[in-house]
């Protein structure tokens, strides 16, 4: 019961604590980071090993279970959130960011743990209502990004509710309708064309770390949720669902490539590069069980890439227009460039391993699929290249005699170093994704 309390109640309590500390955003973020890191440690310790009996509870007649696969995903979610909050302590993201980011952890965990999955759908809706606070973060003015995000999750809810009822009550007479409902719901949640409209406003308007929280960590939970629905019902492999997932994924990648290459602003190009990655995830999901390690590898690399590029862009001040960064600020530009290239999936970046595996999987289905994916990647790379700010080295005369290294620079260097290590030794993230995926089978 202590585990259930830690997973479902503790985030709400910690969130309330950080709300009380809202006047001191750095202290709130630090307290939140420490608490969520402890939570990650706790979940890592109590998660049963592979092959062991999962932990189970009854809640209002419904089953909640924590097995090895879900436990590891939750550990990654908490650890990632703790790191984001640590970064938020350095670069405050907005009045409500910390409180909402921690509160959203409870329904996100519930969505993965509760069965039947129809209740998980409602938990995802509750999480989206809280993530609205992460995206808006107390910022006055345009609410387009948060409203678009809430809209897609609300639109997806009826599809999952009805298909959940059909699955639970074994209404196989509606089987043809069932997989179509799931396809529509999945395309909505995972930004498949034409439901991609929320991604660009999110990257353009939300605080940098909010983008990482929603498109990286939030999507990790959503992707796991959708994958669990498909894996627990293997009959979907015999339907048109895999084909249409691949088609939706490829269409998303192609559109992202076209939009990226015509972009004139850095943040837009980055948004379309993220959309390209989301398309690759959808397409990989359509390749069946073999696609799961690739999907996990893609979303983990996306989280790291987005953290790099958003932190870099925020520091360069290139939020809206392409502009040269102030002389001497090389680190943020390097971060943004490396992160964006990783998001596109170019070689020698952390995103390459996942992108290459996804292209390989699609190539096994048809060489044309791989060709479309490679063309989309190339177009995105061109779009990112054209719009990101160029690094400019200060002249010797401009350099101060003695420059003090600040904490943000150290953090940026650590992030960049971690990304380079992942890029140089791709076997480590790949083996993590493969072992994670093996837990689901």
């Amino acid at each position, binding site marked *: 019961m202590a585990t259930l309390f830690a997973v479902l109640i503790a985030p709400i309590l910690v969130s309330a604590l950080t709300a009380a500390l809202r006047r001191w955003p750095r202290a709130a973020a630090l307290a939140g980071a420490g608490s969520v890191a402890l939570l990650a440690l706790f979940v890592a310790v109590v998660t049963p090993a592979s092959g062991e009996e999962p932990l189970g509870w009854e809640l209002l007649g419904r089953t909640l279970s924590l097995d090895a696969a879900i436990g590891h995903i939750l550990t990654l979610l908490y650890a990632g959130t703790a790191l984001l909050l640590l970064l938020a302590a350095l670069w405050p993201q907005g009045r409500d960011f910390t409180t909402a980011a921690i509160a959203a952890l409870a329904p996100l965990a519930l969505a993965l743990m509760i069965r039947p999955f129809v209740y998980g759908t*409602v938990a995802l809706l509750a999480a989206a209502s809280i993530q609205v*606070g992460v995206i808006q973060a107390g910022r006055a003015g345009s609410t387009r990004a948060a*409203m678009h995000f809430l809209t897609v999750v609300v*639109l997806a*809810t009826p599809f999952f*509710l009805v298909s959940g009822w059909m699955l639970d009550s074994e209404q196989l007479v509606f089987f043809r309708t069932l997989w179509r409902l799931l396809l529509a719901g999945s395309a909505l949640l995972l930004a498949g064309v034409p439901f991609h409209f929320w991604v660009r406003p999110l990257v353009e308007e939300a605080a940098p770390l909010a983008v990482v929280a929603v498109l990286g960590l939030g999507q990790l939970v959503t992707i796991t949720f959708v994958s669990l629905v498909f894996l627990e019902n293997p009959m979907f492999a015999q339907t048109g669902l895999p084909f249409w997932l691949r088609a939706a994924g490829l269409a998303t990648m192609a559109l992202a490539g076209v939009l990226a290459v015509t972009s004139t602003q850095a943040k837009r190009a980055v948004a379309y590069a993220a959309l390209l990655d989301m398309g690759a995830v959808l397409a990989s999901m359509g390749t069946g069980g073999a696609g799961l390690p690739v999907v996990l590898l893609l979303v983990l690399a996306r989280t790291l890439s987005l953290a790099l590029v958003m932190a870099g862009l925020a520091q360069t001040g290139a939020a809206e227009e392409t502009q040269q960064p102030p002389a001497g600020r090389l680190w943020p530009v390097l971060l943004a460039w490396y992160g964006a290239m990783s998001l596109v999936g170019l070689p020698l970046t952390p995103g390459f391993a996942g992108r290459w595996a996804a292209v390989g999987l699609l190539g096994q289905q048809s060489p044309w699929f791989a060709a479309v994916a490679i063309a989309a990647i190339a177009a995105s790379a061109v779009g990112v290249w054209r719009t990101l700010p160029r690094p400019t080295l200060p002249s010797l005369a401009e350099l101060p005699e003695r420059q003090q290294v600040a904490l943000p620079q150290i953090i940026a260097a650590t992030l960049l170093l971690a990304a380079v290590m992942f890029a140089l030794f791709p076997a480590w993230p790949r083996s993590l994704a493969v072992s994670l995926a093996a837990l689901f089978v």
Partner: protein
Amino acid sequence: MSFPTIFDWLERLAFLQGMPAAAVIVAAGAILTVLWDWRVTIFALLLQYLASSFLYVEVLEPRLAIVKLFVGVFICLILYFTARQTAWGQAPADLSEAETAQLQEERRVGFGQYLTPASVPFRFLFALLVVVVLVSLSGRPGYQLPAVPPSLNLAIYALVGFGVVNAGLTAEPLRRGTGLLLILSGAELFYNTLEQSIVMLAVLAGANLMVALAVSYLTQLQLALPVASD
């Protein structure tokens, strides 16, 4: 003298159950689409929740159906207080010129001595079109939802249809949020017809309230002036 119970009220208002309640939902959806005054929006939403609760009586225990009405009333109260706090979407009187320039008023057209927002004729025709499509589709056998009586069929189509229309017509949080709440109402009505689960009823009620709070939060922030809030 004894206070009338839920069952007494239902007996007195029996004439509203079935198709009349579905017709009220269609009318409320059309009002929400055409008239964008916030007072009218909240009133039409309340009307929709009231009519929906009469339809829930056909598929749920009356004691559970009344819970749906209470949730609807709470949602309308949340939106009402939000609207009050943001002066019903109007700009405060003491704004400077620079602050006024940040707010974009919709263009107005004149009909004789009356001025109306330019999009009203379009929205009126659109709402009319949606009503025609809803009524003709929901009556066709091929579009009959499984295990759903005809009145509920029309109501579910109307809630989801007008919900999507309202969510798509504007990005303004209160109006789009109203559309999202309509979609959720339609989905709930359909789900509760298929499965009468008390747990799901409670969970969906909670989710509805959370969406209403999110809409309220965004409405407040959209109308807060950056200068004042930062």
